[in-house]
Structure formats: C-alpha cells, structure tokens
C-alpha cells in the first residue's frame, strides 16, 4: 500500500520556466507534508513543508500547494535554475503526542533543468 505517490519519474524544463512536481497521497491522517531534494551521492535535504491545515506555503522560489479534497500536493519552482536539477521526494508525516513520526516517502521525481 503506497501511501504517497509520485507518478512522474522524471520532468525536464527549460531554465527560467516553472517546474511543477506533483504528489498524491492516500493517508488522510498525515499532519504535515515535506519536500526533500536529493543530489547523487548525498542524503536528502529538506526543502519546504506544509501543514495539513494550510493550502499554500511559500519560501523564495519554492511554493507548495495542498488540495486536501483531492489528496494532492504540488511543488512549484519559479524560476527554475540548472542547480535545481535533482531528485525530489514528497513525504508525509504524522504527529504523535508532541513528537513527529517517521517520514513516508514517494518514489521521487527526477527534475532536469536545461540551460
């Protein structure tokens, strides 16, 4: 049972354009959603998060949108830069008694930003 799904294994965009990475989930109990970026030979790096009670969170070039009714979230990167080329993972997490539970990841989307 895959609780977090990223159905696009790869995405290619032109430098300066918008990148939109999508994520669907089945577990309505998630309290937060997070996006991580991973370069080869490095561990995942936290990018941005959104609470399940919000519908948008913005941090510089990165914006995450949450549609709870559709159980769908998306990460927008504007403008895209070649350095954004990496694998992006979407993850859900629940909060238990004041502490965060484990991250449940999707399979990732490989973003390539072409100069």
């Amino acid at each position, binding site marked *: 049972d895959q609780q*977090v799904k*990223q159905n696009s294994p790869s995405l290619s965009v032109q430098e300066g354009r918008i990148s939109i990475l999508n994520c669907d989930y089945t577990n309505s109990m998630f309290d*937060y959603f*997070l996006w*991580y970026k991973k370069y080869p*030979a*490095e*561990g*995942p*790096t*936290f990018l941005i*998060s959104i609470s399940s009670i919000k519908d948008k969170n913005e941090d510089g070039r990165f914006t995450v949108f949450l549609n709870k009714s559709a159980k769908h979230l998306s990460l927008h990167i504007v403008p895209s830069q070649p350095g954004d080329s990496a694998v992006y*993972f979407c*993850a859900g*997490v629940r*909060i238990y008694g*004041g*502490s*965060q*539970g*484990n*991250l*449940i*990841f*999707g*399979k*990732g989307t490989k973003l390539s930003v072409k100069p």
Partner: protein
Amino acid sequence: DAGVTQSPTHLIKTRGQQVTLRCSPKSGHDTVSWYQQALGQGPQFIFQYYEEEERQRGNFPDRFSGHQFPNYSSELNVNALLLGDSALYLCASSLFRGLDYGYTFGSGTRLTVV
C-alpha cells in the same frame, strides 16, 4: 557544525553475512532513524531510536536490528544478508520533541550484497 555522519560510505558483503552500519547524529539531536532506499524507490523507514530504545519500527524483518548509544550515535545491524538487502541505507537525526521537521540526513552507506 557537523551534520549527520555515516560510515562506511560503501560496503560489499556476501549473501548470508552480517553487517553493521554506523551513524553519528547532528550536534544537538537526540533521535536517530534509519531508512533503506532501494534503486528507483523512495527511502523506506526501518526504525527509530530515542533514549537508547527502539520507538518506532517499519515493516522490516527481525534480521534488521539496531542500537543507540548514550552519546546518541547509532548502529544498524543486518543479519543473514540477502541479495535484496542491497540498497542505500540512510540515517536521519532529529529532536524527539521537535516539530520543525528537522530531519537531517546523512549521505548514506551503499551496501552491495553479492
């Protein structure tokens, strides 16, 4: 400020052998979680240690065990290795009561079972 340190970076083992992977958490963190990332997959949660006890466990067999030391560092042990255990093993540290989603990941240990 050192982040999460994992050792070794690469490892080759033979089927049936046992392996121990090590992790030193980020300074100030008290919780260590281990994840397995198979090729083409997202990281999958193995277990989490806090106060030297296993607090949460994912859907992994008992061949996978761990330990946390008083200095918060941790080990992941895998017994009776199978070819399917070949993966990148990631360690993530955090604050048990932290809600800043400060999971900091190490660069991982690439385990190959032959």
